[in-house]
């Protein structure tokens, strides 16, 4: 069975743990669930209104 070939075992082990520790938790932590939604409203949108360069 090819799964039992020991050659890439350590590489796969290290690579999988790197992905599990470095990539995924950052993505999961980005899913925020704010209890106080007014905090998001405090981020004001940009004050510059759009203008047409030729007018």
């Amino acid at each position, binding site marked *: 069975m090819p799964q039992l070939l020991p050659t*890439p075992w350590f590489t796969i082990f290290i690579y999988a743990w790197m992905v599990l520790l470095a990539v995924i938790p950052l993505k999961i932590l980005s899913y925020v669930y704010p209890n106080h939604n007014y905090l998001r409203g405090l981020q004001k949108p940009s004050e510059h209104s759009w203008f047409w360069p030729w007018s």
Partner: protein
Amino acid sequence: LVLTLVLSFFDQFLSPTFLGIPLIAVALALPWVMFPALPSQWLPNRQLLLQSWFINRFTQQLLLPLNTGGHKWALLFASLMLFLITLNMLGLLPYTFTPTTQLSLNLGLAVPLWLATVIIGLRNQTTVALGHLLPEGTPTPLIPVLVIIETISLFIRPLALGVRLTANLTAGHLLIQLIATAAFVLLPLMPAVAALTAVLLLLLTLLEVAVAMIQAYVFVLLLSLYLQENI
């Protein structure tokens, strides 16, 4: 001739390379682009909403039986669940490689995490952790035998955890390949039987979708149970 045909079915689990790149590296690195970071909006788009709902509810449900000390593992469990369920489900697409069919990956995840729960238990509550090795109400003459049995069952846990995931996914992929080959080979010979085999293949694929999700969940659930005993 039959022997070579049978053996070649396992070749799908050989760590594949293409143009010198080990494809398992691609299979492990690429799926996470499907989980983009949330923009700073109150309501994200449908995909992000579904993903964040899933992660939130799953973590909440998984952490219900754990005490406060166990809540430190929330991020790890959520990461592990996302990792496993994404890899399992993506592996069902044609021509993809499923890294979770590799025993090295599954044992490499199961053994350190199980060992972490055992060490936490032995370090923080040694008596209770050792007490798990003897069920309550055991008749005195049976105590030595039962301690040995419980120790064996304790050490079997990481092996079972890793091999369960590997075996389920490997068997599923093998079955899909076997039945698909059968349907394809039968098509010029007995079209009606080939059609029935194709229906069987469809049902099997549905089963494999369920198995992919369930096996990922079982892996993380069992780890949380082992943590529950020890934290």
